């Protein structure tokens, strides 16, 4: 069922959702999260289709938000869809005029009570998603550096510098099968890794993350080389016995090499956006491993980066990140250290309603602990680096 609403308010959209659900015989209950898709006129069809597909695994209320031109009268148009092959509810919201600058005012009344909010920017996203008004609403913020229209590696590096717990990037999600196979390779051949190499098409954010992850975990130098693609084409871990390597020249079938054994073909197809999103939504807590990787990345890329540039301090950096992580895990269990930051976070949280203000203290404490954790981490890293 589809309902088009022109020039309405968010509460009219909310009541349309309720009506649609009733008329369809209330099929859409049991939704587990609100999925905010920040998109544009050009990309919304694909993005919403992917979000709907994910909705079959994670029944959700999908809010597609298109921010139109700032000129003219403030106006909200909405398309409400219920049923039609998806197990949740879908609302596409078009914000124009003055309203385009205030998407939160539209999203807030439409969030599912008490369930997590996930924000996804299928195209260009802010450098610091956590401080974006819509990103601030979300527990998890999914960006995709690979779909950025500007220099992708640089975009990723900038986001890495603004990393806040809860941030994640599909460039990282794309690596999961690669990482799983490399880890399995090392399970089979527990050898000492002395170095590594990552090959990918130019400006590939996944390659940057892969290299950062390997540096961070193995504490060795990892070289990035440019290949003709598509995407990531080769990852090799050097050891005295030979390379543990994955080579995927065609984006579909990879060759898995382990020292002393015959090469084996491994299916390693590039995954659809919906599959990547589904993986992201499976767990909504902070991804510590990603955090470690982006922090290595943030420190190794002061400004944009040229492929193949030597990085003399890499192994040092890796050690630092490791130390920082240890510090942060220890600190984050101590609420006392969060106090200064918590105080700062209170006004932001408390600005909503009086009812919220009363609970803001608890919420801020929670948020503060998290933030303080990452801040301490930065501080610890600085100390260790100097």
């Amino acid at each position: 069922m589809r309902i088009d609403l022109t020039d309405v308010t968010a509460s009219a959209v909310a009541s349309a959702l309720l009506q649609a659900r009733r008329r369809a015989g209330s099929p859409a209950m049991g939704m587990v999260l609100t999925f905010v898709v920040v998109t544009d006129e050009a990309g919304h069809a694909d993005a919403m289709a992917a979000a709907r597909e994910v909705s079959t695994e994670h029944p959700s209320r999908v809010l597609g938000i298109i921010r139109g031109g700032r000129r003219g009268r403030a106006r909200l148009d909405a398309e409400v869809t219920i049923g039609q092959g998806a197990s949740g509810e879908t609302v596409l919201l078009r914000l124009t005029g003055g309203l385009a600058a205030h998407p939160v005012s539209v999203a807030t009344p439409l969030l599912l009570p008490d369930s997590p909010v996930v924000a996804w920017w299928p195209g260009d996203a802010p450098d610091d998603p956590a401080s974006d008004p819509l990103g601030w609403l979300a527990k998890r913020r999914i960006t995709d550096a690979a779909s950025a229209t500007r220099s992708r590696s640089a975009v990723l590096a900038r986001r890495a510098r603004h990393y806040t717990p809860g941030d994640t990037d599909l460039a990282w999600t794309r690596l999961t099968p690669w990482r799983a196979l490399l880890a399995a390779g090392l399970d089979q051949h527990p050898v000492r890794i002395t170095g590594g190499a990552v090959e990918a098409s130019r400006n590939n954010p996944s390659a940057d993350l892969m290299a950062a992850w390997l540096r961070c975990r193995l504490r060795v130098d990892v070289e990035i080389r440019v290949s003709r693609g598509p995407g990531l084409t080769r990852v090799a871990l050097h050891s005295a016995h030979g390379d543990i390597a994955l080579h995927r020249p065609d984006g579909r079938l990879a060759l898995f090499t382990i020292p002393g054994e015959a090469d084996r073909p491994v299916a390693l197809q590039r995954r659809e956006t919906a599959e990547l999103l589904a993986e992201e939504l499976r767990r909504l807590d902070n991804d510590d491993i990603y955090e470690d990787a982006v922090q290595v990345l943030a420190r190794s890329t002061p400004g944009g980066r040229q492929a193949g540039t030597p990085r003399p301090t890499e192994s040092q950096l890796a050690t630092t990140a490791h130390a920082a992580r240890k510090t942060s895990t220890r600190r984050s269990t101590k609420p006392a250290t969060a106090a200064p930051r918590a105080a700062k976070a209170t006004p932001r949280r408390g600005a909503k309603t009086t009812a919220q203000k009363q609970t803001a203290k608890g919420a801020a404490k929670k948020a503060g602990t998290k933030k303080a954790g990452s801040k301490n981490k930065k501080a610890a890293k600085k100390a260790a680096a100097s």
Partner: protein
Amino acid sequence: MSVGANPLRDPQDRRLPRIAGPCSLVIFGVTGDLARKKLMPAVYDLANRGLLPPGFALVGFARRDWADQDFAKVVHDAVKEHSRTPFREETWRQLSEGFRFVPGEFSDDRAFDKLRTTVEELDEARGTSGNHAFYLSIPPGAFPDVVGQLKEHGLATGAGGSWRRVVIEKPFGHDLASARQLNDVVSEVFPQEAVFRIDHYLGKETVQNVMAFRFANAMFEPVWNSHYVDHVQITMAEDIGIGGRAGYYDGIGAARDVIQNHLLQLMALIAMEDPTSFEAGNLRREKQKVLASVAIPDGLNLHTARGQYARGWQGGQQVIGYLDEADISRRSTTETFAAIRLDIENRRWAGVPFYLRTGKRLGRRVTEVAVVFKRAPHLPFTQTATEELGQNALVMRIQPDEGVTLRFGAKVPGTAMELRDVNMDFAYGGAFVESSPEAYERLILDVLLGDPPLFPQHEEVELSWQILDPIIKGWAANGRPDPYPAGSWGPESADEMLARDGRTWRRP
């Protein structure tokens, strides 16, 4: 970095799937229905999800004059037809390099010699490192032969740190004595922890969710006992008849086929105390405690019922009765419907009967557990207002339409105070491309990983038979099962059995 601990693995890194180590799966009875419809597709789906090791090998053993390529063709067709995930040429290429076929009889020494060399060749060429799982998808009568051969040809024990495992399917015997015998045969060759008994029901997401539901929530536990629960109904209904399984089914019957394994396991999960952890041993201990405290009610005729489907209309189709099925004797007394009452004698459940029922050719295909609560001790309403009010119920829908239903009373809109039961439904997400694995995928992966929590051990099997043996023996001495028309919810005797306790079956 220390050699041994893999620096790329981190317990925090929960994205990384558990990939089985290098190994092979050897399937005996590879031409059977189960192998084609479930096992081969499950292996493919696992590979497609990237959960099998790159050098994984699949070996078929059967009495067919096939070469490796013929076997690959059979697997290919089975996968194309039955796999859950889309067919991908790349995945197929990765898998098919590891296909081997060994033709022969179970008594044929040369065939097992060939199997041994095949397995050794795989260790060499595919790097399976001596790790092999033997899946016995064969009638239990052939177990002694195969297991003995495996031992004789040195296939049952791996060298060094490698493992050998054996997977067996139900039925685990047909009574206590035969279950013990079967266990003796297998355990003589394989150590206890290397024997994996597959009960595919336990691999279902919804069954595992029973534990999450019970032990992760605070609000159900306080009412999960005889103070609030009136009784529990566990139903597994099938709409199909016996199909082509006459040879297997006749003489076995519904109680042995379903109650002994699936329903008693479900009951144990519903009734058990919280385990110390989800580690296999702890889980098993709690289940065993429940099974050990089960008491069979006195008066079998009063508290059990059995039936046999007769001709009738099921779901818009006219179907024949059990006795008219091909290869079934006209005088067969095998039951196709069984309902029993069990009591669990412990502090939590004393006085709460558990009603278990299963049958073929019933109204629809459904498996569910309904926990029915006692009525409120006092209703401050007039008698007429509560006439339509039933008992509260919490229903775990196992299949199809997986989810949870809560049934409670609500006011009928209008001026008069009139109460009626309503349902509150929770549905699990549907089937997404990569998620919601088939039970067999989960279980095969667990076998390859050596992760045993979902596999019943022989103690559980024997306890189940101890519960069922007297009932089946009683039935055997007591005439014929009652006929019930196909498409109904079983014989009248089943309704009478509950009516005696002042209860009724829920229509699932």
